[in-house]
């Protein structure tokens, strides 16, 4: 066990996998000599050289598209997109091509590709650096979408993502990169994709979150406890495939649910979670399910962001409201 930040945990996972599997290639903008703008790839260039750790031209489309070809050639690409907002420049290659690589070749080819990208708000970054765009990728059959909240999961899920035979969008919580620290098991420590984690046990209300919003949910749960409400926090960890059983089990127990997302409300992934609860645990529900989300406007510039990102106060308010319904 070692106490690591999320970005250190990611760096550790990359190093383990590059050492274990010589087919792993790490590439993207500024991942080489300088070790990534957040240092996620720090030291890899120096250790594994410029054939396996590559600074690419500034073009997300070709980063994602070339990853498909490299995978077909027998390599295991782990590409970095500097900020998730810029994955849109490669949207065709990610969503229309990478996600469908297996399907459109009727199983002849597959793309064992991981695309890592930091995302989410709260660090006073410029436009397009902060939006929580996960839902743009969860609606692409063929793609897995992973969004860890803790250093241990960042390491464990990244190891599993790289080894997964299907393409994975690995979304890293930008706000937690250095802020969130935690114990991380040493050595090879894969965490299974598609399994949620009970971040806190409780009996009255289930709060479901992922990525940086898990910390917000945990804070709200703490505050609710002080008011006599026992909150269970479910950290989804993987959005696609979704751990339906874990969600159903918790809501069946508590009878009430709040789903938190950083993204704007309309068509966000929280809607998918709410619909799933409705299908799987309808008869256990004692109150309407609530969503806490950003308003239906794009992420604002820095001076306004604290008014935008859902905070613990809003989650607490939703928790209390659902117990009164």
């Amino acid at each position: 066990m070692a106490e690591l930040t999320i970005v250190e945990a990611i760096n550790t996972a990359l190093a383990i996998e590059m050492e274990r599997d010589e087919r792993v290639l790490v590439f993207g903008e500024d991942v080489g000599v300088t070790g990534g703008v957040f240092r996620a790839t720090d030291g890899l260039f120096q250790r594994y050289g410029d054939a396996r750790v590559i600074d690419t031209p500034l073009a997300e489309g070709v980063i994602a598209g070339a990853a498909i070809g490299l995978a077909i050639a027998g390599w295991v690409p782990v590409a970095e997109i500097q900020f998730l907002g810029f994955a849109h420049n490669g949207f065709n290659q990610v969503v229309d091509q990478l996600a469908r690589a297996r399907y459109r070749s009727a199983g002849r080819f597959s793309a064992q590709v991981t695309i890592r990208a930091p995302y989410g708000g709260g660090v006073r970054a410029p436009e397009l650096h902060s939006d929580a765009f996960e839902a743009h990728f969860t609606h692409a059959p063929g793609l897995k979408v992973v969004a860890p909240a803790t250093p241990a999961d960042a390491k464990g899920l990244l190891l599993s993502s790289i080894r997964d035979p299907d393409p994975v969008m690995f979304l890293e919580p930008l706000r937690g990169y250095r802020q969130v620290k935690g114990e991380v098991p040493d050595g090879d420590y894969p965490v299974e994709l598609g399994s949620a984690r009970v971040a806190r046990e409780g009996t009255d209300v289930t709060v479901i979150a992922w990525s940086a919003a898990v910390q917000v949910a945990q804070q709200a749960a703490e505050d609710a406890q002080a008011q006599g409400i026992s909150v269970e926090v479910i950290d989804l960890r993987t959005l696609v495939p979704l751990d339906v059983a874990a969600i159903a089990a918790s809501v069946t127990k508590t009878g009430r649910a709040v789903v938190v997302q950083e993204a704007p409300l309309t068509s966000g992934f929280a809607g998918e979670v709410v619909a799933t609860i409705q299908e799987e645990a309808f008869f256990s529900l004692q109150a309407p399910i609530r969503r806490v989300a950003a308003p239906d406007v794009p992420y604002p510039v820095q001076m306004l962001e604290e008014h935008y990102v859902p905070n613990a106060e809003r989650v607490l308010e939703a928790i209390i409201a659902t117990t009164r319904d």
Partner: protein
Amino acid sequence: MVRYLDQDGELLDDQPMSDELALEGYRVMLRGRRFDERCVSLQRQGRMVTLAPGIGQEAATVGAAMALDPKTDWFVPQYRELAGQLWHGYPLRLAFLWHVGHPIAFQVPDDLKMLPFQAAIAGQLPQAVGLAWGLRLKHDPGVVLAVFGDGGTSQGDFHEALNLAGVMKAPVMFLCQNNGWAISTTVEHQTASASLAQKALAYGFPGVQCDGNDLFAVYATVRDAVARARAGEGPTLIEAMTYRLGLHTTADDPTRYEPREMHEMWVDRDPLRRMQIHLVSRGVVDRSGLERIEDEVKEELRVAWDEAQKEPAPDPAYYFGRAYASTSQRLGSQLSRFERKGLG
């Protein structure tokens, strides 16, 4: 490569503008330089957000802007050309507010022909082509200057924009500030092309390299490209050879990747120093005149920063009314909830 002033400020050809204009150009370059220095220092004190200074690139952006007519012509920025934008008329006060993260910095004043700063690399280029094409379609005399960096030339948006501009003979000047770096990535990692200017050849219009640290060279090159555009002859790609003397952004640490000697070599090519030597040796201004300009610029910055600090904080609901022309019932109910509760 087009060059008028050598590294030591020696004039190699006839000065392509009046002495008066040259001095004015120098003043705006200085304003850009001192603004960036001030902002980096304010950022270090925690009073500004992450920002990308244009230190060392002032001749490239001011020279290009000087070739435009702000009454008819558009300036389409990326984010590292503030000095040129100041020449075109963007107010210093708003420039300060940009770096404190105030939304009104993106609300370009109505009388200014300029698009907002663009965070997505090369995302502005297709828009600049559409704008230029649209002006031509309505027989508007305006032309469009689109600015971007060397990294931008790798984006699909760059290639699609240049291709369409060539096909439509759009009146647009693509100004690539080749400052040697895209964060830590060198131009050699960006492209195997011998120059960035030569990429224009593939799209059927001229590409020209000029000394981007020479105000006169950039001015004359862009001036010729403007004349072509106005005459209906179509676009030009201009590669201004310059260097990022500052940081990529205040979040960057160039000592991790930038060779020290390379930096020092370019310090000797500083565009401001080059202009100072030239202006003094030509007798346009003397040493005390230069000091007076320093003082005046310092005072302008002080006044603008004071004004910027007086700007009221934005209404927390600022954005609700700015995503659509009219607010839907659903967004309206989100807004009224927001106004009741205050918090995000």
